[in-house]
């Protein structure tokens, strides 16, 4: 390769590196700030989910919610992994992004665990376990309204 060409290539490469460094310099701080915002949003999601679990949910509704959350957090993890690839070796950005990625992965692991637990197959119910017949009148012996049951339970009464 002629010297002039080699020099031209070296110069172009330096400019390319400088351009890429300039881009990284430009996006580093905003990316870290946006990453923190994502983690804050994730923490809010986790808190809402924990509150939702304390209140309880019907199984299908819970599974649907968990699937949506998992999908979103998987995308979040991919975003942090891509950011980490861009800033690999960066003394400032890499540790911060690694920390964000760790938190996203921990949340994802928890959500996946919940999903596995909630989606465990349920055997069909054998109706012969029920005392016959199903009461079909407006009133039925042995039944009380749920609100009455709640009142009794809150009062600590057995009947």
């Amino acid at each position, binding site marked *: 390769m002629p010297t002039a060409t080699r020099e031209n290539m070296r110069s172009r490469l330096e400019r390319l590196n400088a351009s890429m460094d300039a881009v990284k310099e430009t996006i580093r701080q905003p990316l870290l700030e946006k990453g923190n915002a994502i983690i804050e949003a994730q923490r809010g999601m986790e808190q809402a989910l924990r509150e939702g679990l304390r209140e309880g949910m019907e199984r299908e509704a819970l599974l649907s919610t968990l699937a949506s959350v998992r999908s979103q957090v998987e995308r979040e993890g991919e975003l942090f992994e891509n950011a980490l690839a861009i800033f690999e070796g960066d003394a400032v950005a890499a540790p911060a992004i690694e920390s964000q990625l760790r938190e996203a992965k921990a949340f994802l692991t928890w959500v996946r665990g919940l999903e596995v*637990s909630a989606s465990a197959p349920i055997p069909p119910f054998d109706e012969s376990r029920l005392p016959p017949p*199903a009461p079909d009148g407006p009133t*039925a012996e042995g039944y009380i309204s749920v609100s009455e049951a709640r009142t009794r*339970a809150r009062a600590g009464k057995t009947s």
Partner: protein
Amino acid sequence: MAYHVEIDEALVLAYLRHPDRGLADTDVDTLLGFLEGLAQTGEPYRNDPSRRCSPGSAHFEVTYIFADATGTMRAFRFIVSDAAAAYGVLRVRFTEEL
């Protein structure tokens, strides 16, 4: 349509409150709160054929999952009869922890 929801006192309430369940009073209240909510939410469950215990059955099932007072995830299956739906009544006939 809003239903009046009743539970079998001997089978359902007694089961939930039995010491073997290890449910705190607040947990029992949470579960009963869910059942009380069937007054408003019961209709879609009733209309979902996949929830019927068998085709044409008067019973459908709903499973409720929650974190109890200790933070442990618990799942309870409830078997509900809509045989008296014409009177606006749903009856919770059975429950078991899964």
